[in-house]
């Protein structure tokens, strides 16, 4: 029923990509004169494993069904996370498997929730590895595979649509591999641009690279425990705000904007909704901060803007301790985590387009009360949405909320506080990485019990794969013939 050999082959290929990543991290380790063995050992294991899996699918049938696509999306994320946690274990910075897995999944899914309470003391290689997992995870492995390994041909499309974050990459070129290459190029270019800007702000090169990789991917891992507050620099904070907002923008639209079609970006209804949400949330948070303490207006504005863009784009950076803020701001930040940014971007959450459509559907329902016979279309970018897509979007939002409820209940059984449980679940599934209440020391999540780490890792993967592929794995009908 499943094209098992091709699935195994794709697993092998994703390991090759990870092998290349590990070598880069080993190189960074070597530059700083640290122990490169954890990376070299892991890359050795990855290469051997990849070379064992890859030939299995050598002559396999090239066709991949939708079902195969989902299995591949799920398994590849699972596999790379298993292998990706080895450097943490081998270097001894993490002692137990659940914590290492949590940290790695948090990296690849661009969540950015960390268990480390001593980040400033970690070796450079490990810090770099955490950021690199976020950078690659932001676009997804499949995008890199399609661009770098020319073996997919016809079926790349099927895979691309199964790995959820990629669902709405607009095709930039008739061929999928060229599209993937263009997306990676623009992604790389913007990251490089941020590195340059950060270096201007007197951030060290290493910090700039790590921060940039975690910003555009909307990740959240930083090389300092105090996060952005470490630098005490207004310039850096504003620069990072700009790139966080870019990280939440549809990459295809960024591509068009760079190629001179800025109008296409500015007229996009989702992008407008995203910016509008950003402005409104910032104003509310700014106002409540002013009410609490109006001694430094610029500082309040900066904090408000930074935190709102950080939560809305699902990055999860902090430049202050928002836990000391008024409770209203917590609510706004929670809603921002639920919303997320644009589809086709590395960000998490429900995504603006779905809220936009849901809003229009509700609006139409009210109109129906006054005009019972009216036929009211839902338009996105001047195109009328078909009925099936509308119900699909509502269905997704409902399912998202159901998963949050179930996840919260599960964490509550572990005697974690209510605020903590709810915010951690929303944060995990939205791939944000920050939570409210007392989750641990220094912004780490180290109060989580072992079972909680597994649950959170699972939720992060669920959010990254946009729920359906993950849920499908637990539906018996998916595994049955016919």
């Amino acid at each position, binding site marked *: 029923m499943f094209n098992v050999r091709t699935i195994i082959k794709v697993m092998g290929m994703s390991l090759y990509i990870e092998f290349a990543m590990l070598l880069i991290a080993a190189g960074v380790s070597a530059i700083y004169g640290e122990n490169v063995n954890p990376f070299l050992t892991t890359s050795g294991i990855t290469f051997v494993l990849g070379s064992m899996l890859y030939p299995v699918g050598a002559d396999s049938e*090239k066709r991949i069904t939708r079902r195969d696509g989902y299995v591949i999306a799920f398994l590849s994320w699972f596999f790379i996370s298993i292998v990706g946690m080895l450097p943490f274990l081998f270097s001894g910075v993490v002692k137990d498997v659940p914590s290492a897995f949590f940290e790695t999944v948090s990296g690849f899914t661009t969540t950015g929730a960390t268990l480390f309470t001593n980040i400033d003391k970690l070796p450079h290689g490990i810090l770099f590895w955490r950021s690199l997992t976020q950078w690659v995870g932001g676009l997804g492995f499949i995008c890199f595979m399609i661009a770098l390994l020319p073996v997919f041909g016809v079926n*790349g*499309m099927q895979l691309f649509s199964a790995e959820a974050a990629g669902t709405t990459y607009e095709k930039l*070129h008739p061929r999928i591999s*060229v599209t993937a290459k263009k997306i990676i190029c623009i992604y790389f270019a913007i990251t490089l641009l941020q590195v340059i800007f950060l270096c201007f702000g007197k951030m060290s090169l290493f910090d700039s690279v790590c921060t940039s990789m975690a910003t555009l991917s909307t990740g959240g891992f930083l090389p300092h425990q105090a996060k952005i507050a470490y630098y005490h620099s207004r310039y850096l904070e504003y620069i990072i705000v700009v790139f966080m907002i870019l990280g939440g923008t549809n990459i295809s639209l960024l591509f068009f904007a760079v190629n001179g079609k800025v109008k296409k970006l500015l007229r996009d209804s989702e992008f407008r909704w995203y910016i509008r949400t950003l402005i409104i949330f910032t104003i509310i948070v700014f106002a409540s901060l002013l009410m609490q303490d109006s001694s430094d207006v610029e500082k309040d504005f900066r904090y408000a803007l930074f935190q709102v863009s950080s939560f809305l784009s699902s990055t999860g950076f902090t430049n202050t301790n928002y836990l000391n803020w008024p409770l209203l701001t917590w609510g706004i930040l929670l809603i921002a985590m639920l919303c997320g940014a644009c589809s086709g971007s590395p960000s998490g959450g429900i995504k603006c387009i779905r809220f936009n459509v849901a809003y229009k559907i509700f609006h139409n329902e009210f109109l129906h009360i006054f005009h019972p016979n009216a036929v009211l279309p839902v338009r996105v970018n001047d195109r009328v949405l078909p009925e099936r897509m509308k119900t699909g979007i509502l269905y997704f939002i409902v399912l998202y909320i159901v998963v949050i409820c179930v996840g919260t209940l599960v964490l509550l059984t572990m005697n974690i506080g209510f605020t903590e449980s709810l915010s951690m679940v929303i944060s995990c599934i939205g791939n944000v990485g920050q939570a409210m209440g007392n989750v641990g020391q220094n912004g780490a999540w180290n109060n989580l019990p072992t079972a909680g780490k597994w649950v959170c890792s699972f939720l992060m993967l669920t959010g990254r794969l946009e729920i359906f592929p993950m849920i499908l794995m637990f539906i018996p009908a998916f595994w049955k013939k016919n």
Partner: protein
Amino acid sequence: MKIIIGGAGAVGTHLAELLSRENQDIVIIDDDNNRLDPIRSHYDLMAVTGSPSSIEMLNEVGVSKADLFVAVTPDENRNLMACILASKLGVKKTLARIDNYEYLEPENAEFFKNLGVGSLIYPEMLAANEIASSIRMSWVRQWWKFGKNGELILIGAKIREKCELLNLPLREIKAEDPYHIVAIRRDNETIIPRGSDFVQLYDIVFFITTPEYIPYVRKIAGKEDYKDVHKLMIMGGSRIAMRTAQIVPDNLSVKIIEQDPIRCELLNQHVGKNTIIINGDARDISLLKEENIEDTDAFVATTGNSEANILACLNAKRLGINKTVAEVENLDYISMADSLDIGTIINKKKIAAAHIYQMLLDEDVTNVRSLTFSNADVVEYIAGENDAITKNVVKDLGLPVGVIIGGVIREGKGIIVNGNTQIIPGDDVVLFCVGQGQMLKKIDKFFK
């Protein structure tokens, strides 16, 4: 090469599928998003919802940078309009699907060129040609011409008891014989034969030969006693049926059975004296008997319904007709119809798409797979200077198993290849292979 296809109907979809496998950059435009959805998720191409005859749309998909624009919507006027617009917007070549024979007249070619419509195709006409030629050579299952003027011919014939090659190892066929067996289809499997293989009873054997030796192939295939067709019966008065009746020789008498009386009137205005139109249902056996089906030499089913065509042909076979031709538009039914022993199968989409393909091949000398038959691929390459293939005689080239060189076209003449043939630069080499993509890659190495 960037190719824009307007219209995601049967022909457009099939063409897009073929071309996207060739790693061409394909953009397909259609008004109906529902038709594009399956294409979008299955093939590596860009599917855009919009009108193929809208200037804004054409600009949006970058028509000025495209090499070829193919308009294959159901409406010929729209196709012509779209081609005219596309060529004014800067596309290099255009091709329109039409329904009108007049436009194909050679004296009008210049007129259409000036308008911006480079080439025209008429799928029903192509299908009718195919039917007519398969009736002319009633002993042949499938045939295909290579080269501009058909210098090489591929013939597929079913082997029955009278074949001279039966149970003879292929290596015992003399090298200088003017034909070459390039593929054998046996129980749904296609093999590229080697010297030790045998031809068995009920195999379909594919011979490649030059036009002058067709009678010789007929003799050794044991098909000499096959009657030439004098009486033809066609079920369904479709456009293909009408075209077929028009192009078959006058000495052939044709009966077209059509259900719709109004359609019958119309058919009568277009066919010649050798054709009788009969109003009735061709699935009705008593009607067929009344019309003397036993005396008919060939039966062609071209209604719009593939299932009915297949069943009608089976029925005709049972009534003792040797040669049956069925139009099967449902691509998935083709292999099934093949195994049901219905002589020749006609598929408008495949014919049209293959024809467009062939046109691409004529334009561009890089490799293009020209057709697929029975799971085997046919590839044509032009041998260049210093290509590996020109370095040795064929038997010492070390071609991989599953690949065979059928023949070459050299200076406008077809040459049958045997082990001692030396390929020289400039030859148009026709190869056959099984094994899809990977095999093509292996072949590529010989042309570098």
